């Protein structure tokens, strides 16, 4: 039997950590987009991931749509769901406080989860890997091709978002809303539409995370909540509202889980990640990359 050096093991843990971390990062980015514009913590973010995975399974596996078409259609569908969430659950709240809006998103996530259970049942579903299941061997290192897709899509999402926020009028308007909503309204930006847009973009990113995750982890109706919590933790760790922070937070979280499971008691791996999170918060109350001032101005 071949032997594996510690270095090989450590690298293997890193590959896993980066992949899981990328998923968390995508969920965290979704949190941030909505948070920046509305200060709402959208706890239904994980349900977008779940819906992305399950709708993709239906379109690609059950209906036989080609990969790219099914991908696009899934993202589009979940985007519409995200917009409906804003229109039907967030905007109608009569006296919006941060707390009541969070409760509204919790309620929405229950409805999504319940409907998903009625539509798809309780069994998990599989999605073929985008480019086959043959892993790539690199020295003693094993990399599943789907892992690269996950990391690749995380990078792609980041690049597209950077372009969107820096190069397009719409993106700049959205940034203006997050910096100062009242001032943005004064210069003629329709903030309500910006909120709608934030939900749409955030849902689309969630869908991408779900589609790329499903070939690795299968998907069922009950997955959303856990992903939302991990994504929330990543967003907080990195600093709420900060996109580089979300990516950093997600990847740190993924790496701690992976190294914790591999090197220490695996039953406690979630605890390790959260203990680190607590320590970071106690030392830096606004996360790694969150500005203190930003955290103050966005207080509940």
């Amino acid at each position: 039997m071949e032997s594996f050096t510690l270095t090989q093991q450590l690298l293997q843990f890193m590959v896993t950590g980066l992949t899981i971390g990328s998923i968390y990062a995508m969920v965290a980015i979704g949190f941030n987009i909505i948070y920046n514009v509305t200060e709402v913590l959208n706890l239904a973010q994980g349900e977008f991931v779940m819906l992305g995975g399950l709708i993709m399974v239906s379109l690609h596996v059950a209906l036989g749509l080609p990969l790219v078409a099914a991908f696009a259609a899934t993202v589009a569908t979940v985007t519409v769901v995200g917009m409906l969430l804003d229109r039907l659950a967030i905007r109608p709240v009569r006296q919006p406080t941060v707390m009541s809006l969070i409760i509204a998103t919790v309620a929405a996530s229950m409805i999504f989860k319940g409907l998903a259970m009625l539509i798809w049942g309780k069994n998990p579903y599989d999605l073929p890997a985008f480019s086959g299941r043959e892993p790539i061997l690199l020295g003693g290192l094993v990399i599943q091709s789907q892992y690269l897709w996950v990391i690749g899509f995380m990078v792609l999402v980041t690049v597209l978002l950077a372009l969107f926020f820096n190069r397009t009028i719409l993106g700049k308007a959205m940034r203006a809303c997050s910096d100062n909503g009242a001032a943005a309204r004064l210069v003629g930006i329709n903030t309500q539409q910006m909120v709608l847009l934030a939900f749409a973009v955030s849902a689309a990113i969630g869908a991408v995370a779900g589609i790329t995750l499903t070939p690795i982890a299968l998907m069922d109706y009950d997955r959303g909540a856990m992903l939302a919590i991990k994504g929330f933790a990543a967003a907080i760790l990195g600093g709420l509202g900060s996109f580089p922070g979300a990516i950093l937070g997600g990847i740190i979280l993924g790496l701690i889980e992976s190294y914790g499971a591999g090197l220490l008691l695996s039953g406690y791996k979630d605890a390790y990640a959260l203990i680190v999170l607590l320590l970071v918060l106690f030392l830096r109350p606004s996360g790694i990359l969150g500005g203190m001032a930003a955290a103050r101005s966005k207080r509940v």
Partner: protein
Amino acid sequence: MNRFGRYLAMLLLVCVVVLVWGLGTAPADYKVGAIFSVTGPASFLGDPEKKTAEMVVAQVNAAGGIDGKKIQLIVYDDEGDATKANLYARRLLTQDRVTAVIGPSQSGLTMAIIPLFEQFKTPLISCAASHKIVYNEKTGKPYHWVFKTPQSDSMAVEAIYAQMGKMGIQRIAIMSVTSGYGASGREELLRIAPEYGIEIVADEKYDPRDTDMTAQLTKIRALAPQAIVNWSIGPTQVIVLRNWRELGMEKIAFFQSHGFGSRQNIQLAAGAAEGVYLPLGAGNIAEILPDDHPQKEVTMTYLAEYTAKFNEPVSAFGGYSWDAMHLVIDALRAVGDDKAKIRDHIENRKNFVGQQGVYNFSADDHNGLTKDAFLMVVVKDGDWTLVE
């Protein structure tokens, strides 16, 4: 004044509820209760269990019932929550006044309600596996009113270790999910290993909703055991298999628990399940049983009926519920709805042919099965094949 208004509203609410509830339920001849985890994280247990129990009752009633009396099945969904299991058990016992109860789906929840059944002197036939359900540590005997149909985890472990002995495997790694199912299997794996001269070199865990177990497997790979035993349920047992294959660990034999016993899992593993060993009850493998097998007939019948009705593969879990329900029906047929007589009847029942085995109950054994209730199976060409 406002405060009084508030009370008025509350009172009104209570009145409405009283009215709704006052409508009551129609009386039926034999009342049997059931508590399953129909929704929630353990729904893959409770869902087929509920469907099976309802199907069995419908069949019996359609065939004229028991001596002309129909069975009314009252099913509650505990959602995997101990508080709800306790509450519904009390309701079945004190309000619905059922003759016997089948379920719950999970060992922990069964443990949570055993004291109630001892107190209210009503038979409980659990569909959960732990041997603690039928073994009171204080007295060293079974609980008086409690039975269970699934094979104990210790039997599955013994079947696996016996197979390892035949294959010359001594150094193994174990993996388990951090739910009651995984914890109970893990405990038995650790406890019985010395009896079979097996050394456990790694003991890894993961969460029921985890998306990847590569880290745990990488650690195991470096320790180079001869085999891995994985004890989990739900999507994780498929993910772990895929990771095992992707990491190129085929040389390390892979054993799954009986929780893997649904063809859906082979499909979901997308080829990764080839060559995996697992112990299964006869109910999972009806088609490949030899014709002279004692359970061939009942398992083939159940397979045909269940798949025709629900258009999904049968699972071991549905089988637990089939056995529990039929044990109750068998007792009702023999002695009517006297609880104490039903209990005595089940305790003395021999050669009861069910989905999961041929039960021989006794005063010391409220499970009635031996490790022969498990057959070793290996996955070949995307289907179960009997070992040997």
